[in-house]
């Protein structure tokens, strides 16, 4: 509450008559007010400007130079805060008194005035003035608050733009998404990165809370996502890392609901991890053929190991589309308070007869539904189309450090325990990359290594039957069986060696020989090759042989050696 005791209040007395001024001064002093006296309207205007401590003006009407009406108008126009003006006048006709109020006066008193009445009018006016001041101060602090919020939104938007710096969208990549500015402020995030199979890894996330607090979580998640995708870490490892970072950083009540998508172009398989987002749809030939439901706890809530994430896999066909939306779409609300909801969303899928237009159709239907409502601006929708031919522009590609070719070799020996415990390939890839970045060959190398390693484990060590993978259910069974055999196997090992030699003829490249040896029983590869020319199960090694200059199966069938030639002259 502001202080309205008389001692702290100052009144401006405006009267051309000396006696009147002296009487008023004495009266004010008696009641405990301070006073300043001036002789006319012009002086009054100046006095208010010069003395910000003036709380109230007692104004005569008829004065030389400038009369009270004009002075009141100017004072009221110029002052930012509320200064009450009480007219003191000898005039008693109604028209003149009305004019006092019209000129900006707050009250009037006719001369000769009653002292008690004057006192109480001053008091009542000052009380109103103090209320005004309170409201004014509150308004100011609300304005400051709004300003701060606008600034925060701005900072957040910039942060999220930086985080989303790599835009992988385009006709040629198959990726489309729409994020409204408000959804970004509300903590929605989309990240995409090219993976080792030339497909995309995509993350769609929705943080609880909004603004800066959401951005705090988004920064480490983005770092983990980009760096681990680049270093070829598998899905679960990335999830564990992101989950740990968020657990450390975010307060208990905050978490990140997310969908992680991996499009494996080597095997045409889609992997989906849904943790707390609405259903993800796989759309083929004008209908939804699979729904990926949320089966995981959102990230940043509890500690999880890589095997605790439920990841669903589905075979992909060219032309397939994947749709992911945050709950902003389903919860978009119209002016009646109704939500867009699942039924309306599914209806858009049903009604659509042209899949190229589906993405826009969903956005439009949602916007139409919300028309006239204010809360329409919180929508994040992603579509990925699995295309037969894709291409990435230069700024979407990796930036490798160029390094002079050199001769080197390295070897990894992995026993059954290490095979069970961790995925060694990212480390090998990283080591190779540090030693000898292979320019355009990076993706190829990863594919070659992955296929050779998978072949050694799946067939060499575990004797699994690849034909199981032909159906979606089989795919899951295959991986379950693989996990089971790995865990129960007592002995076994795999040796991976890499040897690099400079191409002395051209001086601008080299050849890398990869050899993978498993401790399994091997097989009669000579007769196998003649009888199984088009065998489905040989797909992995076929890929290796197509990418390499030379591939040999050696020993008793447990040794595979492949040579990959590369050149610093880009041939892609």
């Amino acid at each position, binding site marked *: 509450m502001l202080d309205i005791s008389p001692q702290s209040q100052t009144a401006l007395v405006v009267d051309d008559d000396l006696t009147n001024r002296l009487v008023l001064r004495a009266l004010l002093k008696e009641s405990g007010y301070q006073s300043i006296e001036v002789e006319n309207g012009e002086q009054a205007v100046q006095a208010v400007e010069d003395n910000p401590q003036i709380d109230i003006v007692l104004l005569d009407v008829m004065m030389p130079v400038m009369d009270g009406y004009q002075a009141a108008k100017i004072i009221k126009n110029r002052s930012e805060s509320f200064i009450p003006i009480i007219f003191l006048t000898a005039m008693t006709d109604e028209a003149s008194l009305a004019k006092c109020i019209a000129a900006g006066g707050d009250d009037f008193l006719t001369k000769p005035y009653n002292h008690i009445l004057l006192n109480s009018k001053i008091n009542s006016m000052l009380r109103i003035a103090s209320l005004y001041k309170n409201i004014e101060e509150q308004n100011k602090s609300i304005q400051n608050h709004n300003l701060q919020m606008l600034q925060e939104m701005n900072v957040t938007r910039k942060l999220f733009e930086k985080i989303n710096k790599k835009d992988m969208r385009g006709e040629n990549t198959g990726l489309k998404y729409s994020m409204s500015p408000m959804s970004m402020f509300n903590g929605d995030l989309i990240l995409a990165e090219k993976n080792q199979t030339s497909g995309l890894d995509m993350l769609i996330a929705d943080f609880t809370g909004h603004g800066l607090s959401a951005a705090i979580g988004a920064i480490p998640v983005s770092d983990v996502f980009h760096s681990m995708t680049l270093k070829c870490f598998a899905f679960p490892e990335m999830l564990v890392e992101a989950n740990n970072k968020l657990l450390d950083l975010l307060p208990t009540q905050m978490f990140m609901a997310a969908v992680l998508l991996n499009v494996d172009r080597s095997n045409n398989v889609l992997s989906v991890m849904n943790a707390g987002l609405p259903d993800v749809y796989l759309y083929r030939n004008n209908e939804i053929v699979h729904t990926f439901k*949320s*089966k995981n*706890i959102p990230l940043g809530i509890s500690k999880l190991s890589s095997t605790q994430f439920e990841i669903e896999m589905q075979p992909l066909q060219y032309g397939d589309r994947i749709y992911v939306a945050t709950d902003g779409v389903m919860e978009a609300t119209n002016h009646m308070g109704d939500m867009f909801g699942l039924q309306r969303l599914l209806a858009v899928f049903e009604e659509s007869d042209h899949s190229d237009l589906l993405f826009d159709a969903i956005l439009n239907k949602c916007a139409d539904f919300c028309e006239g409502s204010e809360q329409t601006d919180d929508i994040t929708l992603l579509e990925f189309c699995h295309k037969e031919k894709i291409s990435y522009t230069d700024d979407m590609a990796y930036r490798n450090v160029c390094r002079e070719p050199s001769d080197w070799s390295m070897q990894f020996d992995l026993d059954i325990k290490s095979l069970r415990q961790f995925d060694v390939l990212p480390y090998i890839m990283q080591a190779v990359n540090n030693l000898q970045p292979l320019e355009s060959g990076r993706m190829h190398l990863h594919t070659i290594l992955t296929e050779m390693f998978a072949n050694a484990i799946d067939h060499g060590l575990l004797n699994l039957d690849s034909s199981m993978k032909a159906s979606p259910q089989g795919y899951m069974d295959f991986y379950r069986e693989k996990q089971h055999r790995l865990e129960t196997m007592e002995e076994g090992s795999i040796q991976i060696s890499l040897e690099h030699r400079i191409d002395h003829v051209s001086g601008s490249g080299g050849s890398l020989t990869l050899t993978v040896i498993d401790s399994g029983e091997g097989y009669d590869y000579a007769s196998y090759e003649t009888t199984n020319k088009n065998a489905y199960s040989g797909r992995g090694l076929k890929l290796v042989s197509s990418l390499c200059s030379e591939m040999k199966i050696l020993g008793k069938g447990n040794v595979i050696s492949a040579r990959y030639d590369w050149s610093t002259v880009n041939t892609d």
Partner: protein
Amino acid sequence: MSVTINVSDDKKNATIKINGRFDFSLHNDFRKSYKDVVLSSGQYSVDLSGTDYLDSSALGMLLLLKEHAESQSSDVMLTGFNDEIREILNIASFDKLFTLG
């Protein structure tokens, strides 16, 4: 909208009842309701039978209650929710974190 709490005499059970929308506007009331409650190896149940909507900040508030309960070797049970709320709890896999009654 309201939050009420009932603590049993033996300090084993506390029931928090949420009426209306369970969202950020209840943040303070919800926290205040259990802040000073101490159970020993008991159970907090959140009665959602009067709740008609629950958003993600409510999920966050439930995680805070869980933290509070765990510090007293107690657990949290969610009861009385309607189908829509069950769907939200399912999507967030909260059945893995809370007992759903």
